């Protein structure tokens, strides 16, 4: 009877093919764990989930000969099928709404629903970017207010709002640095980054035409000031430093680093992805930063959405402010104005140009501003304090079972870093991560930063309760002891997820990146 299970799922079997744990199902479903085929397998070209007038032949055609002849090959589903398809898919995801999501460096904090509501107000959601500014004063006001918050929180005099994510913000910062250097006729060639930097840092520097060189680190996990000073010279355009860094430590010597960099005629880029650790307590402007991007989708809680969108405004020191990209919003006696190519001439001749169409991630701005207004100055200070407290609690609750390379480097900031030292032969960070999945947690960031073997970077954020942390710590201790003991069931974890371990090698070796009809293949 159990033929057409198309999904491929089978219950675990004994050697002689007896099912164990539960019987096979006809559908391949397991109660609420529901398999779902592709839209291409369930939809068809004649089905649609919208009601539109049926095109008739009398319809005018002024397409100038470009009209489409061939079919597109897009399946349609009725609305009920569509809602069900995506609802079923969604249930195969983990999310902050389900539990702790301790991805280090990613700041997976709670996304308040008020922010979603506000972003959907017609005055924001249903507004065209090129509408006359007399009709968009409230939207320009949001950008302006948010810019003021960011400047105040960072203690920096200027901000570029248009970058679309962190990496785009990095690019913005590095381009401003290059523009500033070029403006003084100084064609430096090298950007220095620590090895622990996020991949976007070297990628950005290279994208902007720089050579990337390594900044050495001290054994305690911080930038080696002396080594850096030794390397500084007339070819160095900038250093890119993350602070707090990706080992979760505050760069104690940041001010000294910045002074040395400035003395050498270079500029200081700070990767601000970890701003959550210090927001409201420390102003990067006081540390000598020239440019820093801020991930609104991290510190200021705009949702990650399964990969994006983000928003990466960049704050600038006075030295870089004139080079900031277009557009930006100015407040005048008569209202808000949008400064673009046209008007930039007068005020802002040195702007390095434009990074994107239109004015940036407005949908993220409304959410971030709503978040900031909700917390206020006092709340944001509490945010960073609780974020740091939670991370230290995890660090100190796990350091006896998991190797913590920088446990003696002082308190961590918003994230705690561990390595795989001490695991039984053959046991890896990946195995521990997959075991954590069975425990009902999303794993921490794995194998990053590169400076620690089998790195596990745990960032709980401030929106976790002590009870959630305690359960996570218990689960981590349990899985870690299994890794240390060499429990082989970890190698085949996860056991309870919608999928068993996926073959990533196969995917890369024979890439299948779009669906093709097997009937045609």
């Amino acid at each position, binding site marked *: 009877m159990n033929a057409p299970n198309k999904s491929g799922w089978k219950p675990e079997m004994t050697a002689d093919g007896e099912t164990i744990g539960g019987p096979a199902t006809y559908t391949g479903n397991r109660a609420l764990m529901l398999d779902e085929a*592709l839209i291409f397998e369930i939809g068809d*070209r*004649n089905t649609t*989930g*919208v009601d539109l007038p049926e*095109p008739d032949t009398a*319809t005018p055609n002024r*397409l*100038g000969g470009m009209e*489409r002849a*061939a079919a*597109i090959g897009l*399946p*349609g*589903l009725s*609305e009920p099928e569509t*809602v069900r398809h995506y609802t079923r898919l969604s249930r195969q995801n*983990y999310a*902050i709404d389900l539990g702790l999501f301790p991805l280090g460096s990613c700041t997976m904090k*709670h996304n308040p629903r008020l922010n979603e509501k*506000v972003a959907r*107000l017609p005055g924001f959601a*249903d*507004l065209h970017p090129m509408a*006359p500014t*007399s009709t968009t*004063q409230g939207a320009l006001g949001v950008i302006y207010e948010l810019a003021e918050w960011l400047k*105040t929180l960072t203690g920096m005099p200027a901000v570029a709002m248009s970058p679309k994510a962190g*990496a785009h913000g990095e690019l913005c910062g590095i381009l401003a640095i290059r523009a500033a250097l070029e403006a003084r006729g100084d064609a430096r060639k090298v950007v220095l980054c620590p090895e622990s930097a996020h991949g976007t840092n*070297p*990628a950005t520097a290279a*994208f902007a035409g720089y050579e990337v060189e390594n900044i050495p680190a001290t054994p305690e996990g911080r930038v080696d000031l002396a080594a850096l000073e030794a390397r500084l010279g007339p070819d160095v355009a900038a250093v890119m430093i993350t602070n707090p860094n990706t080992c979760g430590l505050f760069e104690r010597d940041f001010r000294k680093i910045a002074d040395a960099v400035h003395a050498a005629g270079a500029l200081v880029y700070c990767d601000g992805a970890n701003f959550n650790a210090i927001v409201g*307590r420390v102003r990067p402007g006081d540390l000598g930063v020239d440019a820093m991007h801020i*991930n609104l989708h991290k510190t200021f809680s705009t*949702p990650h959405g*399964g*990969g*994006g969108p983000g928003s990466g405004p960049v704050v600038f020191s006075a030295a870089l402010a004139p080079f900031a990209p277009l557009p930006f919003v100015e407040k005048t006696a008569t209202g808000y104005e949008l400064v673009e190519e046209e008007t930039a001439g007068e005020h802002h001749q040195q702007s390095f140009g*434009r*990074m*994107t*169409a239109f004015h940036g*991630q407005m949908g993220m701005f409304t959410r971030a*501003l*709503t978040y900031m*207004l*909700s917390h*206020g*100055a*006092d709340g944001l200070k509490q945010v960073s304090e609780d974020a740091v407290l*939670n991370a230290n609690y995890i660090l100190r609750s796990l350091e006896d079972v998991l190797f913590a390379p920088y446990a003696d480097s002082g308190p961590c*900031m918003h994230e705690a870093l561990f390595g795989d030292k001490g695991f039984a032969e053959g046991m890896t960070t990946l195995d521990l991560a*997959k075991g954590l*999945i069975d425990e009902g947690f999303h794993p921490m960031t794995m194998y990053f930063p590169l400076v620690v073997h089998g790195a596990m970077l745990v960032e709980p954020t*401030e929106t976790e309760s*002590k009870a959630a942390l305690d359960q996570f710590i218990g689960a981590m201790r349990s899985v870690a002891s299994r890794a240390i003991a060499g429990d082989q069931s970890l190698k085949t974890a996860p056991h309870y997820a919608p999928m068993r371990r*996926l073959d*990533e090698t*196969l995917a890369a070796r024979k890439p*299948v990146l779009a669906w093709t009809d097997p009937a045609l293949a």
Partner: protein
Amino acid sequence: MRYLPLTDADRSAMLEVIGAPDVDALFVDVPPEAQLDGPIHGLPMHASEMAVERHMAGLAAQNMAASSVPFFLGAGAYKHHIPASVDHIIQRGEFLTAYTPYQPEIAQGTLQMLFEFQTQVARLYGCAVANASMYDGSTACWEAVAMAGRVTRRSRAVLSGALHPHYTNVVKTMAKFTGDTIADAQPAIQPKADNAGLISRIDDQTSCVVVQYPDILGRLPDLQEIADAAHARGALLIVVNTEPVALGAITSPGELGADIVVGEGQSIGVGLQFGGPYLGLFAVRDPKHVRQMPGRLCGETVDAEGKRGFVLTLSTREQHIRREKATSNICTNSGLCALAFSVHMTLLGEKGLRALATENHRLACIAADTLSALPGVRLLNDAFFNEFTLLLDGDARQIVRDLAAENVLAGVSLGRLYPGHPELSRGLLVAVTETTTEDDIHALAAALKGKLQ
């Protein structure tokens, strides 16, 4: 503070476990002179949900929502009806609050959606492979130019004069730093796109030709001709589309020989949102170019039990693996907008997309006829899809501003797009979609008539 679960008792208990006397002790590594002594000055204190909502609603009320007036703006951002179920689905916590699907066993929802999205985009564009999204059309356009440079090992890009000026500016800005040469131009104000002029600028150093389709003036250039000319010189053809709905009515760029097709996906599922977040689409016609593509790619595989599943793949192109050798620095992309696009496209299906395109075109034809019948108004385009250029007897930019005061949003003037070009000042771009009513068209006609007398 409603978003912070720790109680004071929790904090004390945790500090005890940590062995720190107080929270300040956790910040010992921050030099004292860099620490603030209390809540930062110059910002308000925390506020209730109701108070914040009132503040934000007050700002929202100062904007003229597109749906509240006769509305004709386009130029790369279009107002379309988005089915209510799209917004419902993108608000599912499992989609909204998930991260990039790096742990595929508990991210199949996002991954399968991306695989479906990539296939939808590839088919729409007539391409083999599409990626999992870029920031928006303009940054996708620059990434395509950069990719063409990698593929051809040349560094001179020829841009059509009828490419969206913001896109042109982004490309030119980036090229300043990479050392690429950008040959751009102003749009030629004529009924047909200036293919001949464009083709004449292609040379043997040309890495790519970048053409918008439909173009910024709403015209429909014959891409095949440009593709042939580019290919003859060893250059790639990059086609930029800012209105995906058009592709329900016109032949796909891939079918006409485009090598890389990029575009703005905002029209399908995303909404206007004052310019962002939008959805960069990126596809290549020939699978051999896949390894030069920027951005994430989702691919099919199997799990340990042989069950089909999906993972992010070919990551050796990407910054987190390849660092300074990556094809792009992009990390976070437009995932949730891709979901919105994919859901809307699934609702439409081929049938719905075609009907939607037909309806857009039908209403645009009515608008073009109605408006060009007015004294002092001339229709520039020979052909168009849902957007066209009018030439007015007057300064279109001022007229747009004046009509806004009468609660009619008449379109985007060429003066706004190309400030400082008096020869373009009479041009008005008018976009019409399925959301435009005949009443809206008559309201615009009446208002325009009033201004042109």
